[in-house]
């Protein structure tokens, strides 16, 4: 074993991670600026959008597959993010931005990617004409396209919370659920409301190409809950300091793979390498679960007392290990807890142990937020707005990214299941508090930006 510097044991470890523990690169996402595509005529603007995406991303899937072959590491998704469409479409003389979503969808199909993010508006402080039109077009855009993902940033630690936008997003989520009613309201699975949204996140549905980004960029999202879980399972007697170290070492190795793939893709495509997003992203596949890690740390079920502390330790250790392994870290970077996409979370939610309120608490210590949670179809827009407001407040005060991706499943209620299939998974409809928040959310206005000191 001479021509590589690593030992036989290390070679075996890598093989085991890939073959037995579902280690994969979750996504290579190409960010593409569409800032030069605006035009007063919407038809021309849409054609420019389509042409630019298909030109820039022409070889993305091919290169991704070559890298997969070369290194023997699966790259699950090749995806695209674009400039927030509200900014691109704003120059066009039209009220309806749905055709822009269709142009994105067609371009994504043409280059062979399964999701394209960036039907997006950033409205934490207020809305422009383009923002307003884009948000109004979201329900139809999600109903009429397959691949388009939408996101709206309504709050930040610097700007506070735009409560008018929060209430409007409550109504938009309801409308998106209704518009995709016959498909279990799947439109809402592609719509995220954010606080402190990162501009370089490669993970859907919240991915877009931020305004400070270059013309094009390659961002990589890594994953590997199964690898971390196995590392934890092998150390039943380790104290939590030791366990954090084990997780750090594992995150380091996973991230190195992401760095290798990102650098190689960037060279092959002639596009600069942006960041690695160090997220533990679960899938519904057995063994690919963040919940399983929490249970391996020592909880009888995710959702019981101790869950928040275990998740905080996991999330921080993943970041520490990953940051050492990569030259540029960004995006969301932490543990994801999307309920419908994690077999362990689904189990705990179904048993009633993992509740909506516990999930909210968990989001204060992990990346992102209330993610892929199915709620009763009859939930009011005001209640959804109040859920968003709570989650935005956690992000704003803690200077972190938080998000809401809830699905008020049209025609279904507590006790029933929703099946999205594929990576989006399945979920029990979770009960919510039934008392009204209407007066609070209808007050409107902005919740002022918080103090950045006296942090108690």
């Amino acid at each position, binding site marked *: 074993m001479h021509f*590589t*510097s690593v030992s036989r044991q*290390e*070679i*075996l470890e890598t*093989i085991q991670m890939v*073959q037995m523990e579902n280690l994969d690169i979750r996504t290579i996402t190409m960010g593409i600026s569409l800032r030069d595509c605006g035009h007063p005529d919407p038809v021309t603007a849409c054609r420019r959008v389509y042409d630019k995406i298909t030109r820039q991303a022409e070889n993305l899937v091919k290169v991704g597959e070559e890298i997969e072959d070369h*290194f*023997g590491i699966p790259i699950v998704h090749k995806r695209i993010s674009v400039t927030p469409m509200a900014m691109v479409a704003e120059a066009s003389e039209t009220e309806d931005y749905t055709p822009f979503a269709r142009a994105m969808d067609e371009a994504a199909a043409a280059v062979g990617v399964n999701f394209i993010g960036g039907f997006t508006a950033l409205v934490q402080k207020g809305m422009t004409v383009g923002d307003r039109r884009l948000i109004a077009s979201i329900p139809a855009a999600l109903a009429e396209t397959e691949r388009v993902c939408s996101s709206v940033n309504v709050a930040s630690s610097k700007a506070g919370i735009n409560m008018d936008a929060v209430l409007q997003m409550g109504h938009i989520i309801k409308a998106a659920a209704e518009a995709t009613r016959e498909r279990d309201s799947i439109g809402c699975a592609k719509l995220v409301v954010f606080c402190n949204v990162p501009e370089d996140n490669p993970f859907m549905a919240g991915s877009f190409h931020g305004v400070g980004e270059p013309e094009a960029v390659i961002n990589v999202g890594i994953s590997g809950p199964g690898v971390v879980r196995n590392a934890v399972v092998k150390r039943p007697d380790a104290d939590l300091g030791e366990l954090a170290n084990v997780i750090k070492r594992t995150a380091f190795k996973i991230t190195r793979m992401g760095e290798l793939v990102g650098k190689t893709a960037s060279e092959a495509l002639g596009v600069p390498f942006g960041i690695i997003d160090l997220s533990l992203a679960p899938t519904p596949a057995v063994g690919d679960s963040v919940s399983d890690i929490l249970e391996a740390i020592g909880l009888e079920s995710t959702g019981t007392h101790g869950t928040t502390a275990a998740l905080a330790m996991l999330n921080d250790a993943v970041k520490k290990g990953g940051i050492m392994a990569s030259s540029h870290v960004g995006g969301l970077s932490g543990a994801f807890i999307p309920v419908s996409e994690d077999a362990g979370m689904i189990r705990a939610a179904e048993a009633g142990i993992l509740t909506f309120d516990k999930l909210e608490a968990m989001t204060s210590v992990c990346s992102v937020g209330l993610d892929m949670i199915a709620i009763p179809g009859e939930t009011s827009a005001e209640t959804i707005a109040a859920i968003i407001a709570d989650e935005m407040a956690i992000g704003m005060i803690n200077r972190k990214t938080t998000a809401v991706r809830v699905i008020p499943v049209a025609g279904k209620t507590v006790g029933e299941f929703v099946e999205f299939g594929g990576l989006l998974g399945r979920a029990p409809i979770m009960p919510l508090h039934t008392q009204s928040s209407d007066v609070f959310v209808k007050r409107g206005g902005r919740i002022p930006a918080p103090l950045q000191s006296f942090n108690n």
Partner: protein
Amino acid sequence: MNGSKVIISVLGKDRVGIIAAISGVLATHGGNILDISQTILEDYFTMIMMVDLSACDLAFPELKETLVTTGEGIGMQVNIQHTDTFDYMHRI
């Protein structure tokens, strides 16, 4: 994505003829075996081969497909990876 040195791993239930089958493919196409080792990994028989492909007459994807097919023929899972994968994961 250059470099001619790869690691071929073969996982499955131990049986007669595994090394013969895989090394046969490599001999036919000019892959030079530099080292072989075998071990048991989570109850699976695991063989690791270090191979130099600088004189190989097949492109990497074709060689991979041939090896995977050969492996399936004897009930084994075959994977082939460039050595960069291992160097990069374990070293800065």
